[in-house]
């Protein structure tokens, strides 16, 4: 039985939610972790946002973190534990510590693993059974995906950010436009983005259905990685190899879409998936304006959940909460426009969020989430409703 190609995995990132059953599977089968030194673990989903010197109040959360700790000890996996200065959201610390490097294959039991593609790695999310497969074999059976070039020409306007860009792209590609593909983001607009902005773009590839999104490494990438704890010691030699990674000029992709950076205005989602999005200067769409019956019924359901009616201008929507965080936008540059961070919304509460998903109940049952950029969230926090950040004094 031939089967799909066996892909070698260079780095495996592990967190507490999607790994316990995988380690248990190894134990039951008497298997070990093939490459503990290529495996890095951190608890990042059940971490209290309050004082973490205190015991974790929820016994089940505590059990999950304790289990990760015990598994790492038993299988020899390096753990960045709660009290470790390097602990953090796995998709933030991977690049920050230099674990993530160009040209690597990287997997994690988490759909936002595509974040690491910002450094020119092939990085994607996997299920727990696949986590177990990688732990045991350091490989994954993986059919070759199709390639998709998303080129963005020009530059973003003042006040428009990487988050607006990726929401705009998802709005055009739909929630499943990238299914079966790996996206490569190319073009001058992408090249101008800093490393954190590139991570924001790649992070949300999964919201367009693509398991992985990547950006070819360049001077921005190399400058970012230089001096990181786990970056290669012979850095110049590594750079010489990384410089050979970008896609050849004239290479053919299975699909190509071209956009103009100048067309992107600050984005706000109005529905319950990230493709239900529009510009801040627009209004909530009328469900009847959609020709596809699925889109129409999805929009109608979404507006009912969101407590919105078609035709309402986005700037007229009042907000109860603002959330700045998540693996998409929780980096220091995002937090400089800091706001009070609520954990959970109560039913009917409306929140401007820098998160990556506006699914029903994602931020608490009945909570209504609008996805926006950190700058838009901060401005909304000041105004109490959505505002067009481009019309503000914005430094």
């Amino acid at each position, binding site marked *: 039985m031939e089967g*799909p190609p066996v892909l070698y995995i260079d780095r495996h990132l592990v967190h507490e939610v999607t790994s316990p059953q995988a380690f248990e599977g190894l134990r039951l089968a008497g298997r070990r972790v093939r490459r503990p030194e290529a495996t890095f673990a951190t608890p990042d989903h059940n971490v209290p946002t309050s004082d973490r010197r205190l015991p974790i109040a929820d016994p089940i959360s505590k059990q999950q973190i304790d289990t990760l700790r015990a598994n790492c000890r038993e299988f020899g996996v390096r753990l960045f534990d709660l009290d470790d200065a390097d602990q953090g959201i796995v998709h933030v610390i991977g690049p920050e510590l230099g674990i993530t490097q160009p040209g690597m294959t990287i997997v994690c*039991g988490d759909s936002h693993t595509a974040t690491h593609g910002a450094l020119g790695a092939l990085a994607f*999310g996997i299920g*727990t059974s696949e986590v177990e497969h990688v732990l045991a074999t350091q490989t994954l059976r993986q059919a070759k995906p199709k390639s998709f070039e998303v080129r963005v020409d020009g530059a973003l306007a003042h006040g428009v950010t990487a988050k607006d860009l990726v929401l705009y792209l998802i709005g055009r590609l739909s929630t499943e436009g990238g299914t079966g593909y790996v996206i490569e983001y190319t073009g001058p607009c992408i090249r101008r983005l800093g490393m954190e902005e590139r991570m924001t773009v790649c992070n949300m590839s999964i919201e367009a259905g693509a*398991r992985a999104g990547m950006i070819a490494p360049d001077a921005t990438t190399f400058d970012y990685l230089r001096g990181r704890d786990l970056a290669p010691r012979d850095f110049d030699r590594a750079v010489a190899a990384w410089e050979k990674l970008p896609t050849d000029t004239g290479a053919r992709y299975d699909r190509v879409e071209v956009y103009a950076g100048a067309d992107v205005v600050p984005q706000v989602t109005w529905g319950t998936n990230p493709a239900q999005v529009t510009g801040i200067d627009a209004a909530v769409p009328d469900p009847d304006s959609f020709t596809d019956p699925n889109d129409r019924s999805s929009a109608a359901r979404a507006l009912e959940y969101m407590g919105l009616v078609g035709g309402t201008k986005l700037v007229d929507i009042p907000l109860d909460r603002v959330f700045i965080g998540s693996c998409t936008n929780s980096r220091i540059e995002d937090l400089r426009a800091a706001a009070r961070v609520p954990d959970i919304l109560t039913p009917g509460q409306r929140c401007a969020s820098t998160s990556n998903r506006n699914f029903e109940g994602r931020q608490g049952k009945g909570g209504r989430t609008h996805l926006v950029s950190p700058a838009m969230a901060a401005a909304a926090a000041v105004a109490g409703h959505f505002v067009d950040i481009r019309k503000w004094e914005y430094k």
Partner: protein
Amino acid sequence: MQPFTTHTGVVAALDRANVDTDQIIPKQFLKRIERTGFGQFLFCDWRFLPDGAPNPEFELNRPAAAGASILLARRNFGCGSSREHAPWALADYGFRAVIAPTFADIFFNNCFQNGMVPIRLDEADVDELFRRTAAAAAAGGQYRLHVDLRACEVSDDAGFRKSFAVDPFRRQCLLEGLDDIGLTLRQVDAIGVWEQAHGLPPVAG
């Protein structure tokens, strides 16, 4: 893994597109460290009213869906989070197959690891299955489908018969209930050769 060869069961129709894994199993139920016991939380926010009673409006709670083992849904089923808890919850509830026009990639792969077949059919065929399920419910009955993984076919007793495509390796693993880690470990020497060629130290032990 539980093998899958053929299965006949009641169809539950979930007439929604973009059903995400947060809906299939909300995040507050991801804290268990076992693979079992997630069925009670399946579609929790939709399935139950705030007081915990079953929501009679929800598709799976209707009499036509009682005892269902085949889930019928719209496109992009299983999008969002990679949590394998979603197929665990569906399988634990009793589903053996999910039929939709399209699936999210990670969910699609995860199903095969859990003895459950994700079946892609054309949108028109899925429409037809929704019609047949609704007609059976309107007559006070239930709609049944027969899934044959050996023949790669979905059929009913009233003339519906469609074949579906499935990766031959995944199909074989599912038919025989094979452990794919065991299969990959048969190639462990080749993996070692690759590692050596790429400058990695030999694996200890």
